[in-house]
């Protein structure tokens, strides 16, 4: 089992989709929202995802395919 801390960023129509609900149904992972700020056309959610390492990877790839940006909670860690 592993835990991943990530930030989802939603823009445009992605805001209206119940992505976090669906990811818990489609994959064997547990999501736990810790912080969020959502407006009508933009929002971000910081959450923990528990599950098997590979299953979390599959779940996050699926979330990205839904048009949601997925980042580590620390933001960009690749610096010049």
């Amino acid at each position, binding site marked *: 089992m592993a835990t991943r801390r990530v930030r989802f960023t939603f823009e445009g129509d992605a805001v209206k989709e119940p992505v976090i609900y669906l990811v818990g149904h489609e994959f064997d992972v547990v999501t736990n929202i810790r912080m969020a700020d959502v407006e009508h056309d933009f929002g971000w959610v910081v959450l923990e995802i528990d599950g098997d390492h590979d299953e979390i990877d599959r779940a996050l790839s699926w979330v990205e395919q839904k048009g949601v940006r997925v980042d*580590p909670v620390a933001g960009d860690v690749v610096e010049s």
Partner: protein
Amino acid sequence: MTYATCLACRECGREFPLEPLHVCDFCFGPLEVAYDHDGIQSRITRERIESGPRSIWRYIDLLPVDEDFIVDLNVGWTPLLKAERLAERLGMRELWIKNDTCNPSWSFKDRVVAVASSRARQLGFQTLACASTGNLANSVSAHAARAGMDAIVFIPHDLEAGKVLGSAVYNPTIVSVNGSYDDVNRLCSELADNRQWAFVNINVRPYYAEGSRTLAYEVAEQLGWRAPRQVVAPMASGSLFTKIHKGFQEFQRYGLIEETPVRMIGAQAEGCSPITTAWRNETTNIRPVKPDTIAKSLAIGNPADGYYALKTMKRTDGGATAVTDPEVVEGIRMLAECEGVFAETAGGVTIAGLRQAIANEQIDPDEPTVAFITGGGLKTADAVVEHVTQPIPVEGTLQSFEEAFAEAPEPVGVGG
């Protein structure tokens, strides 16, 4: 003995021990080093600082490192140049250039890595690590070599060979990640949780960030123990920007300089300006972007400290600028032609941002202003190579020289 007491969450204030932690377990806010201010106050004086080494370590009382663990490459105490010719060109009365191109690996990253590597050694790490496309990897590799530590540097697989050289010469392990920028980002965030490595800007980030405050300390001391009224600094993650302001505030708190409001102006390139865009839209919600600019050292699309940079601007009656790539090149040339300082593209962003801030009346040209130049120009030579003076070809005879010289065009300056 360090006066650092704990790590404290910037959001909820919860305290954590001085360990390799960077995110609050409760609210996921970023952690920051907290200090025993009374202890510092009782010890620190101008004289004590002035008698210290000519490096960032003259401020060791204000850094989260014990003296026995310092990794010393003689970082900092870089020149503060009075930029009279550039000031005249920009219509300013008093402009200063903080020239951080003079650091051991030619960028301000040496300040943050010096503190991170020293703290990493104190925490018992044997390995320094980072994910980087340039300056940070250079500095991590150099400091690891100096400390006799191992270095592991992660780079995107398509990084140009020239950029790898500045790290490779120090013989780190270089891992070329076959994937997108986001893949490198994610891999390193996971590794930081799973390996006993000090990733300087991930698991030891709270200590790393503290090094930037020394820029403000040096400027205040070099100005004759006073703060400037206005500052222009580049913004990537936003950390440098907020820490410069914090540095001036601390010197005021400890009575080392008079209480003076310092207006903070941040500079970004238009091709990666999530913080400036949020500022202009009057929101603190920063929308991540895909960077597309020649200012690669500022190309952070999802800035970790962007929110705090916005708060700093608001609190100081400051602002933000965004400049085009041609303006960046003009900025580099202007600084070089007027002051003899060759900056990398981030410096071009700063100078072009300064000019924009004057035009937008975000900066008062009559007030003392410091512009921060954070990296040397040879790091991004490709950005300007086609925009600078070309040689006049001649044979090795007087006649050939006279003929060619008579026909040579007058040097053309930039920026009016």
